[in-house]
C-alpha cells in the first residue's frame, strides 16, 4: 500500500465508436472532449515542473505503411515507451507511479494508445480469438473479443495532502510462467498479482473489480478462478468495459484505471455490456443491465496479457 498520495487526472480520451460515452453516462464527471491531440500538447500545458512522459502501446513500431523509425520527431521529456502486451496501459501507470514516488518527476503523463490495423485484426482472427457476434464478457455464450482503437492521456501527480481527486492506492504484478499466448487455466498467476496488490489492505474494503474481461473463453474463466481464490469464494461485484468499447490493447489498462477511479469516487458501477447469463462454475456477481450504486471505496482493476503478464491496481477515492 502506498504511503504517499498519487492522484489521477484525466486529460483526454478518444475511443472509436460511442462505447465510452455510453459507459460514462453512469458518472457525473463530464467526459473530456474527444480528440487526438498528442502527448506533446498535454505535456506543454505544465510549466516549471519536472516531467516524465510514458507511452503505453503494444504495437508502437509498425504502421500501415511499414516500420516507423523509433523516436523520430519525438521531443518529450524522459519519454519511455512501456510495451507489455495487453497490460501495457496498467504497467505504465505503475511505472509512472514509481517514478513519482522516487522523486524522478513531479508530474507523469501517460498516453495509452493503439490503432487497430488490418495487421492486428488478421492476427487475432488467425488466433481465432475474435468474435463475429456480440462481445459477451463473463457470459456463458462468450466466444471472443472485438478490437477497439483508443487513445487516452492521463496525468499522475504526487500531492502532499489529501486531494479530492482519485488516487492510486496499491498495485501488484506477476508472470504466469505458463504459456506464451494463453493464460494459466487455474488463475494462479493473476491471483498472485492481486495478492501482491492487497498486501496491507483488508480485502473486504474492495468494493468492486474492473476485470480484464476480454470475453474469450479462457481469459474470463481464468479471471473468475483468480477472484474466487483471492476472495475466498465470495468476490465483490465484477464489471468489464470491453463489451462497450472493445479491447483497446495498449490503452485498455489505462482506460480501466480511469473508469475504476470514477467507480471508486462516485460509487456507481457501470453495467457490463454484452453480459446476460453467467457460468455456473466460479459464478461471479457481474453487474449488468443497469448501473449499480455502491459505497465509494477501493476498486481493483486487473489486466492480463500474452507472455503471461498480469497486473492488479487498486484505486481509491480522494480525500482519504
Amino acid at each position: 500500500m502506498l504511503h504517499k498520495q498519487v492522484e489521477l487526472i484525466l486529460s483526454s480520451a478518444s475511443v472509436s465508436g460511442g462505447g465510452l460515452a455510453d459507459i460514462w453516462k453512469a458518472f457525473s464527471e463530464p467526459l473530456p472532449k474527444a480528440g487526438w491531440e498528442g502527448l506533446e500538447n498535454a505535456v506543454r500545458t505544465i510549466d516549471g515542473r519536472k516531467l516524465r512522459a510514458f507511452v503505453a502501446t503494444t504495437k508502437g513500431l509498425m504502421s500501415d505503411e511499414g516500420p516507423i523509425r523509433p523516436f523520430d520527431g519525438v521531443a518529450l521529456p524522459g519519454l519511455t515507451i512501456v510495451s507489455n502486451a495487453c497490460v501495457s496501459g496498467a504497467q505504465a501507470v505503475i511505472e509512472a507511479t514509481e517514478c513519482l514516488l522516487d522523486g524522478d518527476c513531479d508530474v507523469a503523463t501517460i498516453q495509452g494508445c493503439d490503432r487497430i490495423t488490418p495487421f492486428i485484426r488478421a492476427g487475432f482472427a488467425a488466433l481465432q480469438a475474435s468474435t463475429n457476434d456480440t462481445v459477451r464478457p463473463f457470459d456463458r455464450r462468450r466466444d471472443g473479443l472485438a478490437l477497439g482503437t483508443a487513445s487516452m492521456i492521463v496525468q499522475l501527480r504526487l500531492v502532499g495532502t489529501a486531494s479530492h481527486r482519485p488516487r492510486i492506492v496499491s498495485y501488484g504484478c506477476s508472470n504466469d510462467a505458463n504459456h506464451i499466448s494463453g493464460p494459466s487455466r487455474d488463475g494462479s498467476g493473476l491471483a498472485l498479482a492481486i495478492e501482491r496488490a492487497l498486501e496491507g489492505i483488508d480485502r473486504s474494503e474492495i468494493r468492486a473489480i474492473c476485470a480484464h474481461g476480454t470475453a474469450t473463453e479462457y481469459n474470463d474463466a481464468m479471471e473468475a478462478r483468480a477472484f474466487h481464490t483471492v476472495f475466498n469464494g465470495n468476490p465483490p461485484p465484477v464489471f468489464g468495459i470491453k463489451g462497450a468499447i472493445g479491447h483497446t490493447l495498449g490503452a485498455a489498462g489505462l482506460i480501466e484505471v480511469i473508469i475504476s477511479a470514477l467507480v471508486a469516487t462516485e460509487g456507481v458501477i457501470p453495467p457490463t455490456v454484452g453480459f446476460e447469463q453467467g457460468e455456473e462454475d466460479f459464478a461471479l456477481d457481474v453487474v449488468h443491465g443497469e448501473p449499480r450504486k455502491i459505497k465509494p471505496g477501493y476498486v481493483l482493476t486487473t489486466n492480463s496479457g500474452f507472455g503471461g503478464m498480469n497486473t492488479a491496481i487498486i484505486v481509491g477515492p480522494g480525500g482519504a
Partner: protein
Amino acid sequence: MSARLIAYGRVSPSELLSWGPGGALHTSWEELNAGPVAEYGTPKLRAKFFFDAPFTKYGRMDPLCKVAVGAAQLAFKANGGLTGLEPDEVAQVGGTMLGCLEVDAQFEKSRQAGAPSPALFVYTLPSMFQGEIAIQFHLRGRCTLLSTGELSAMTALATGIRWIEKGRAKHVLVVAADAAGPAAAELGPDFGAQSAAAAYLLSGDGEGRALSDSRFDGEAGDAKELTSGELSYGTTFVDTLEPLLLGSESMRVHASRGTRGVSFKIG
C-alpha cells in the same frame, strides 16, 4: 540496500560471454563452429549453443526471443541455475529499441499472402521474450518492458537496480535485446544487421559488484560518460559498460542521448 550483479551473460555478433559463481565463458562463434553469419548479424542461433538439453521450442521463436533467451540462459548457467533465487521473486526488466520489428515484417508478409500465421503473430509484441524467459526459468515476479531508444539497456538496468534498492523485488533479471535484419534495413542505411542481448542477474543478496543510486536525467555531473561501442540499438553501451562491471574501480557511470540520460553507481 544495493543491488548485486551476481551473474551476467551476453550474446553479440562476434562472441558469447558470461560470468558468475557457476563459471565463466568467453567464446567466439568461430570456436563454436556456428556457421556463416546469417541475416540477423550472427550465425543462425541454435539451442545447442546455449542449452545442454534439447529445447525444440527454441527453433520456433522469433529472432528477438532467440537472442534474449540465449543471453538469459548464459546468465543463469553462470549463476549455477536458480541457485540462491526464489523463482516467484525473480522479476524481469526488459529493454529494447526495435522490439519485434522483424517478426512484425514476417507476419505482415504472411498476411499479405492471404495466410496470416498465428505462430508468427504471437511473437509480434516486444515483450514476448520475457514471456519465454519466464516459462523457461519459471519466473513469476513482476515484469516490465521499457524502450528508450539507444538508452534502453541502461534504462532497464537502472530500473532493475532501483527495484532492488526500493525493495520492489528480491531478484531482477534485466535483459536488453534487439534483433535487426531485413526489416530494420528498410529503416535506412544506418540500420545494419545485428543480434545482441545482455542479461544482468541482480539480487539483494549474494556476491557481486554493488550497483546503486539510479538516476534518470541528462546531468552527468562527475560521472564517467559512457561512449558507444560496437553494439547498437537497444544494446548500445552494453559493451563499453562491461569492463567497468568486471573491474574493481568504484564510479558513477552515465549514458546520454540528447537531453535524456541515465546513470548509476558501480562499486
